[in-house]
């Protein structure tokens, strides 16, 4: 309908076109130089590194969490299920503030880390922990439906064929979950690299050490260095698109595998 098209153009297409235009204003050489400046590279290391580790942690614990929620009955199970949604629902500024308060040296958890010499605030560790918080729902909610649909007969078949419980897990259950695990990882990773609010509080934004790419973009904009911001924005967009394609591809692979049975 006409309204949709007009609305879309105004809201999405024109701003995106702006990005294209601004990019075009720079020569490829300039763009490249801006994209790989030392400070930019440092920010990539921080952003992608922390996001990767956070997504990985979420895959491990998120799977355990999904397993417990689907397979076991215990007191507080539905409450736990509801709490999983909180990181997604909470405004990022609140999450950032909360995590900083908790991990600060005098914070509820920080006070136990301090004597061990672990510094969580203003370090990449803090960033990673914040990104783990953010990504928590993604793996859980992606894996849960797959586990729920797993037929008991498959596990029974494996057991009667002689597999130990561990063998059933590793040879049958985990391979069945692989597409969901990868999708959950990709979703958590994609969310983490773009994350701003939850991270800026805890990171301290030290150049080269704890400066995430989104913040660098923001700084460049404040300094009216639109070119620099555009270059970095482009890098992030390319990665986001790649992740989007990967996620959709994984979804299609999973559907094909599950196929017609």
């Amino acid at each position, binding site marked *: 309908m006409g309204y949709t098209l007009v609305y879309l153009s105004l809201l999405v297409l024109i701003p995106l076109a702006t990005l294209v235009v601004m990019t075009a204003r720079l020569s490829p050489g300039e763009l490249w130089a801006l994209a790989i400046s030392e400070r930019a590279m440092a920010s990539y290391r921080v952003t992608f590194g922390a996001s990767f580790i956070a997504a990985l942690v979420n895959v491990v614990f998120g799977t355990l969490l999904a397993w417990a929620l689907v397979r076991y009955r215990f007191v507080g199970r539905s409450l736990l299920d509801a709490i999983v949604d909180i990181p997604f629902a909470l405004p990022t500024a609140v999450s950032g503030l909360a995590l900083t308060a908790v991990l600060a040296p005098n914070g509820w958890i920080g006070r136990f880390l301090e004597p061990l010499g672990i510094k969580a605030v203003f370090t990449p560790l803090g960033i990673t922990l914040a990104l783990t918080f953010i990504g928590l729902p993604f793996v859980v909610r992606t894996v849960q439906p797959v586990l729920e649909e797993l037929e008991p007969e498959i596990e029974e078949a494996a057991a*009667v*064929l002689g597999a130990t419980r561990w063998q059933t897990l590793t040879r049958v259950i985990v391979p069945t979950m692989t597409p969901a695990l990868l999708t959950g990882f990709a979703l958590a990773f994609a969310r983490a690299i773009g994350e701003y609010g939850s991270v800026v509080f805890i990171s301290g934004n030290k150049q080269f050490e704890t400066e995430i790419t989104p913040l660098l973009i923001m700084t460049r904009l404040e300094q009216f260095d639109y070119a620099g911001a555009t270059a970095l924005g482009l890098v992030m967009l390319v990665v986001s698109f790649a992740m989007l394609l990967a996620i959709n591809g994984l979804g299609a692979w999973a559907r094909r595998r599950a196929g017609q049975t």
Partner: protein
Amino acid sequence: MTIHPAMSTAHTPRPTAKATAGSGASGEAAPLIEVRGLTKRFGTFHALDDVSLSVPGGGLLALLGPSGSGKTTLLRILAGLEHPDSGSAMIDGTDLAAQSARQRNVGLVFQHYALFRHLDVYENIAFALRVRKRPAAEVDARVRELLALIQLESLGRRLPAQLSGGQRQRVALARALAARPRVLLLDEPFGALDAQVRAELRGWLRRLHDEIHLTTVFVTHDQDEAFEVADRVVVMNRGKIEQIGAPADVFEHPANDFVMRFLGHVNVLDAELLDGYAKIGDITIALGRGGADGEPPAPGPYRTAVTASVIAQGDVRSRVYVRPHDVDVARTATTGAFAAQVVRVTPLSGGLKIELAVPSIGSRMRADLDWERGSALGLRNGDDVFLSLRRARVFAQEAHTAAS
């Protein structure tokens, strides 16, 4: 009007019906599977109630019954997927209570195949051997052997999603056989398949069994399937065994009214049992004593096997059961025949089904005629005919009146 059909009377079902000598091709007489007094409850529901059973080595046994009869529960207990509340089960002399599912080395085939979707056909079949860490050469040889057995040699690298239902079930069977189990268990193996594929696989399973002589137990609710495939049939109802025997035995000499009703079609006629006679509406038929299993009962007015006290009381309301193929239809009256009117003639695959209205009995009856007799009679709706009963049965105790 008195009719003298060949009558036999029933014995009540014995709770511990033991199998007679097995008819498996290998001819071993010693039982391989021995079940005694098995009971299993789910909450208040009795899935199995004191069930006992023997299966000889090399036999092919069908557990036949309606849903809820306990047949699947029995199978799952044998596989190790359920634990009985009481009773014992033994395979090859080993008490199953001491063994977990994975230790038992039985083969299990599920109704919905339960193939591992992420593994190809080859790896599905190889699974049992891989988890036992068998060397690759041994695995390869065995898998190829089985692929040839199920005639799917060229499909080794396909995924289950790329196979038809019948192919998947064959792969499931090969998978179950890979580790050379002592016993093969199948849970409604053809239930998920089209009628045509089902018929093909039934014959195929029978031929397979003739070839490899593996002791096999399968569960079905389809009487044709049980009869076509199995050496012996166990008819189950509500957690109990009603009768065990070869298909012909069970069909011709049902132990009780449930078995008679469950297998094939039957005319159920309300009757009063009197001393030596059964009165069905206006018709009276003489009751004879049935012979031992396998012997045709002698005709004539004998005393029934109904208990003496019942006879003394005078009339007992009961039912007389007549198979449709035991109803003779003729255009002219003979001694003992009674009048009826044809309501509908339906051609079926085996012959003609005749629905009849019988005024003297006050209910409808069904007669099945083979093609020869049917065309010779040339019946039309509305024709007047005469019926006589070749055989009929009365059961002294009907404990299963609510059965299907």
